């Protein structure tokens, strides 16, 4: 009897503690986990965001790099952290929407997290080596169809977004290009410059400097809409593959057990951040556009992306058999 009473009492206290902490949140240092190595694109976004959050929330926000397994290790750490609002993740599309479909992860992209808001998005840019007689997306499809398996594309590694976006493109256009994986997006872009591979669907951050120096020829962006940093580039969707949309995002996510009041408070801050002119300027430097989504929109987007990649993998597997 006493034991049950104690259990109820402690459960009640725990509940009380949760609500109290949600009201006072944040009352101590917040850890923002970056599941990638320092210096990369996600890391830059996280550090820019951390500076803003620190100012708005009045608490120290430390960036904690937990790289490994293409973002799986760090995302997993956050999924398993206590949901008290003091461990957050700047997660990215690769480890959340692609990896759980392509390989086994111990977290579920929809159930293990409470998404708060997407912070920034960046499209991929279709770049080809300038020595190729390919000047438009139509040229690319025609050339690829005439020479099946001959065009090679560089990616950041098997099962990464740079790999899957081309697989999706191949599936939609009936083309077949040869996959050449690299260790990261930056060496894959360098390989397009040197001509070791013919093309790549590469992150805009990596593509822009090489485009300016005419080291690569850019054909299109992979997002649904044209991009503000290269408005002259058409989208893949408007040229050859209607409905094609692949975009890389970084967003703030919390462990699934985080109380809703904390999510709501954080959502408000991130909404302000997306509209902040200073933030827009800082994000533009890394080639990113600031974005705000409500937790519900964010959750729906992740679910839709997981579905898209799952369907593609099934399609590819069926073709092989």
């Amino acid at each position, binding site marked *: 009897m006493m034991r049950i009473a104690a259990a109820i009492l402690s459960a009640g206290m725990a509940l009380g503690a949760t609500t109290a902490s949600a009201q006072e949140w944040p009352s101590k240092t917040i850890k923002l986990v970056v599941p990638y*190595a*320092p*210096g*990369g694109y996600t*890391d*830059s976004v996280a*550090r*820019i965001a951390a*500076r803003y959050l620190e100012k708005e929330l009045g608490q120290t926000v430390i*960036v*904690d*790099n*937990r*790289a*490994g*397994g*293409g973002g*799986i*290790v760090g995302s*997993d750490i956050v999924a398993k952290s206590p949901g008290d609002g003091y461990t957050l993740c700047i997660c990215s599309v690769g480890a959340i929407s692609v990896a759980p479909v*392509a*390989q086994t992860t*111990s977290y579920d992209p929809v159930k293990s997290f409470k998404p708060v808001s997407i912070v920034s998005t960046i499209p991929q840019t279709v770049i080809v080596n300038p020595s190729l007689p390919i000047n438009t997306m139509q040229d690319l499809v025609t050339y690829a169809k005439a020479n099946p*398996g001959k065009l*090679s594309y560089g990616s950041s*590694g*098997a*099962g990464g977004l740079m790999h899957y976006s081309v697989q999706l493109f191949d599936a939609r256009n009936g083309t077949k290009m*040869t*996959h*050449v*994986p*690299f*260790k*990261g997006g*930056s*060496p894959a*872009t*360098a390989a397009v*410059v*040197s001509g*070791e*591979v013919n093309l790549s669907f590469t992150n805009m*951050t990596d593509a*822009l*400097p*090489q485009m*300016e*120096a005419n*080291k690569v020829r850019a054909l299109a962006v992979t997002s649904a809409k044209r991009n503000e940093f290269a408005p002259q580039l058409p989208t893949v969707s408007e040229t050859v593959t209607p409905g094609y949309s692949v975009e890389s995002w970084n967003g703030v996510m919390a462990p699934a057990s985080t109380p809703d009041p904390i999510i709501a408070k954080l959502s408000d801050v991130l909404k302000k951040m997306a509209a902040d002119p200073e933030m827009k300027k800082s994000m533009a*430097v*890394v*080639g990113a556009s600031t974005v705000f989504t409500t937790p519900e929109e964010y959750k729906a987007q992740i679910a839709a992306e997981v579905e898209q990649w799952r369907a593609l993998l099934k399609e590819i597997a069926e073709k092989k058999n």
Partner: protein
Amino acid sequence: MTDVFAALGHGFAVAATPINLFFCLAGAICGTLIGVLPGLGPVATISLLLPATYALSPVSAIIMLAGIYYGAQYGGSTTAILVNIPGESTSVVTAIDGYKMAQQGRASEALAIAAIGSFIAGCIGTVVIALLGPPLALMTQQFASPDYFSLMVLGLVSAVVLANGSAFRAIAMIFLGLLLGMVGMDLNTGEARMTFGLVELSDGINFVALVMGLFGVAEVISNLEGASVRIVNKMRIGTIWPSFKALRGAWGAVLRGTALGTLFGILPGGGATIASFSAYALEKRVARDRSRFGNGAIEGVAGPESANNAAAQTSFVPLLTMGIPTSATMALMVGALTLHGIAPGPMIISRQPDLFWGLIASMFLGNAMLVIINLPMIGIWVRLLAVPYRLLYLVIVVICAIGVYSVNNSSFDVYMTVGFSLLGYVLRKLDAEPAPLLMGFVLGPMVEENFRRSLITSHGDPMIFLQRPISLALLLVSAALLISIMMPAVRQRRVEVFQE
């Protein structure tokens, strides 16, 4: 040519402002310190200090961060020489003869030649960037996967030369290293290999954990078991300045090491490591008396140390001329530049001349500062050896643990260090040297990656390795080296046959 000097003059004007001089010095000191602490590498330090640079101008920030990077190359040799713990892959070979020199009471001689060699190499490397940066960068563009594969093969063959004991054991160690290097995600399929379902292993075994275990802690264990604990403690500490004779024996090694380092440093992926290993192998090849190697040959310290510092300077070439980072540290520099609002790329020299030439000028100043900081420090470092070993080893073990943890903030890596310490102790008992193992571990994944990528791009045709001139030349050099290693053994057997 006059353009270059005018630009360089402008660079000195930028670098020599009091504020930039201060941050250059701060970076150099910080780099030396983290270089000395085993395991704590420039990547961890630069990422920690990145937020602190927000308030600085981009030029000051990059000058300081670069100072940390090449400063760490000076400091990295210190623990390799004094306590047989190489802080980074580039100082693994320094430990072979450097530590022997320390045991013979010649620690200060080894440290001095490391600092002087690094200084000369750093200056020459910087001149090369200033004069030849952009054309050299274009040259690296000629290197494709088949050429890298052949370069790595050359590296593996040189690893046999590294060994001072039996060639058979060396080859066995290289293969053990190759096997350890297989752990992790398969690049082409994304499947996990030999990870036993541990996510922590999906990016492979942590290099620092492997080195700290095999070298550092294993050394401590075997020192503690012997009654004659550390001969070095009883030896005289010696003078700081190496004798004229010692220097004369080393200058050739410094120049050869610098040449190799300058060349290999420009190549992406492991260039600096290959440079230091091949510098050691080269010294051993050209030496008249090879038996001195592994027993405290000063060239065995001078060559690799010069090579790794030259490589540290020239590894900035691809970053500054093309915006392509060649290592984790360089990727961090890209991050630092973008956070400061500069997108590194092919246009950086024309758009940011202050940054490019200021950084180059600061490298001259930084190297001069480093040699001035490091030479007097030698006395202090060497005196550390006088600390009773029962106290010293505790400090070594604790610092190793902190260093390993700091790489990925992962306690899993610390447990791995414990495992590798036991392995290292067993290998030591079997007279198997860990240096060739590390060479296999570092090169193995690169060999595989480039081999498979070559075959993908050639659609499965292995002739691609012989059709490309760079690759063919490298393979021929490897074959020649392999034959020259085998020849003495063959000749010896023939002599034996004749005697019978």
